[in-house]
């Protein structure tokens, strides 16, 4: 079984600041982390490999420093990693990002299963996983909370929905996106850390994956971010209730009754 796990390096959200002059997100000096949802994708890939043999490969598109996230994946058991990094990839929206990742997966060749996180915590769209499946014309299952069975030709998964879940069986190759219920990511072992320090991570450019340059980067992206601003503040005049606990309880209760809440 050949598994590809797609991972994204993201800024730790708490730090997202907007430059008041340029209205752009200040990325400099932002702490970068592996997208938290992708740690579950990595863990699932490693567990499936351990059970069924084969190889698990981590794949990321991003700036050169995204290599650190790929090393993190290797430290918890991924066999090898590939970084897609080039000026020409910059500014890709989800359409173009999933195109690039799909081309890289084709290039890797003979891939049975692609695992993505549910969503990235910066762009927050959850569109890249299904996008990859669409570009490859593979089957997909999203919001997967358990892989129940897998064979060389098919996979059976439990998909989470708002109203419950379903069990879905499909032939491979396929793309799945996973939610945090699926597993508990391991911490890196000493051996893993050593491997991650030592390994070579190849960097692929558009030519390496035979990408059509009209489909990548800003030019290949149908969406355009035209404005970035802070969210509108919630206008409020806060009514403060203070005093002894009994006074507080009684004042709050009065407010609740006034509004027919109790």
């Amino acid at each position: 079984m050949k598994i590809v796990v797609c991972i994204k390096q993201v800024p730790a959200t708490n730090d997202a600041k907007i430059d008041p002059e340029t209205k752009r997100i200040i990325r400099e000096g932002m702490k970068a982390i592996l997208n938290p949802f992708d740690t579950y994708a990595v863990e699932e890939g490693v567990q499936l490999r351990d059970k069924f043999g084969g190889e698990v490969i981590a794949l990321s598109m991003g700036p050169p420093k995204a290599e650190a996230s790929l090393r993190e994946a290797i430290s918890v058991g991924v066999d090898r990693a590939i970084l897609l990094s080039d000026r020409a990839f910059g500014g890709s929206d989800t359409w173009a990002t999933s195109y690039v990742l799909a081309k890289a997966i084709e290039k890797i060749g003979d891939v049975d299963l692609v695992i993505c996180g549910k969503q990235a915590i910066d762009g927050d769209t959850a569109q890249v996983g299904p996008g990859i499946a669409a570009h490859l014309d593979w089957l997909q299952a999203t919001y997967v909370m358990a892989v129940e069975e897998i064979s060389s030709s098919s996979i059976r998964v439990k998909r989470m929905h708002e109203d419950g879940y379903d069990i879905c069986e499909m032939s491979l190759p396929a793309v799945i996106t996973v939610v945090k219920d699926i597993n508990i990511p391991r911490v890196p072992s000493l051996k893993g850390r050593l491997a991650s320090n030592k390994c070579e991570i190849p960097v692929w450019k558009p030519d390496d994956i035979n990408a059509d340059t009209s489909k990548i980067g800003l030019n290949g992206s149908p969406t355009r971010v035209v404005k970035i601003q802070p969210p509108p503040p919630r206008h409020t005049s806060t009514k403060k209730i203070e005093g002894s606990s009994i006074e507080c309880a009684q004042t709050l209760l009065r407010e609740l009754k006034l509004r027919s809440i109790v």
Partner: protein
Amino acid sequence: MIAFTDAERKKYRNIWVVAEILFGEIQPVTYELTGAARTLADLRKSEVWVVVMGSDIEGKLESLFAYGADVAILVDNPGSSGFVDETETKIMKRLIIKYKPEVVICGATTRGRALIPRVSVMTHCGLTADCTGLSIDPENGDLLQTRPAFGGNVMATIRCSNHRPQMATVRPRVMKSPEPDPGRAGRIIKEDMLTSDSEKIKQIIDVFHSTETAYNLADAQIIISGGRGMKGPEGFKLLKQFAQRVGGAAVGASRAAVDSGWIPYAHQVGQTGQTVQTKVYIACGISGQIQHLVGMQSCDLIIAIDKNPDTPMMQIADIAVVGDLFEIIPEIIREIPNL
């Protein structure tokens, strides 16, 4: 990507909504989106079309007209056992090529978020996720889409002017449902299913309705939510009692409480949990970090109970109660008659 010419762009008309169907019922998000689409279509002097894919649903289409739809495209799929992303994608692609809508809006639900990115790739269109605001240029039909990103820290405005249709998803309960007009009529267009792809097989073996994985915070009018300040599972017992006394209240939680194992994930509100828009939200011992606020800040009335008066939650709250919740909440419970 080659941009559309003006002439090509003009061939695309009408605002479409992809209906969310669950267990043979049209879901509320569909009506919310139909209302939003109506506003856009009126500005463009065009029509609202709703695409309905499901089985045994024909008798229920009238309600769509009442909420503002002009046309319902019905793709009846008898014997369909569940949601098959690939089949629905193919249907959507075929309909888009045939009828050329200017805008397609879909609910940002687990199904919608699986389906529509696939459609957008297959039709070479831009797709904006989780929009909280949609406005349209009445002259050229360009859609201005506003959406939160970076976990709610920023609002981005996005356009997809060079291509048609323009696609967007909107989370449930973000748009307000319009008042239905039962007298409004509309047309029904019936479209066939497609024969399935032979070599690739996907089957939905079973569908479970479960409240364990999907605690429905959304249906509640009132949510009483607890955070790290609840100190442990015992604290949540207190909240459940409180919720029982306030008839019909649901119990929510911050991620800190969920991660501590005091209450299941299904109760989590926020960026990585659920978004809620209830009439009343009572936050108990939740400091109100941005990832939590994005999930609840559009609730009508926010009440916070915290011993620290300076937390972000206490700042945005309409009513901020300063004190020890382990003293205040039992007192309130005592005072509310147990009906």
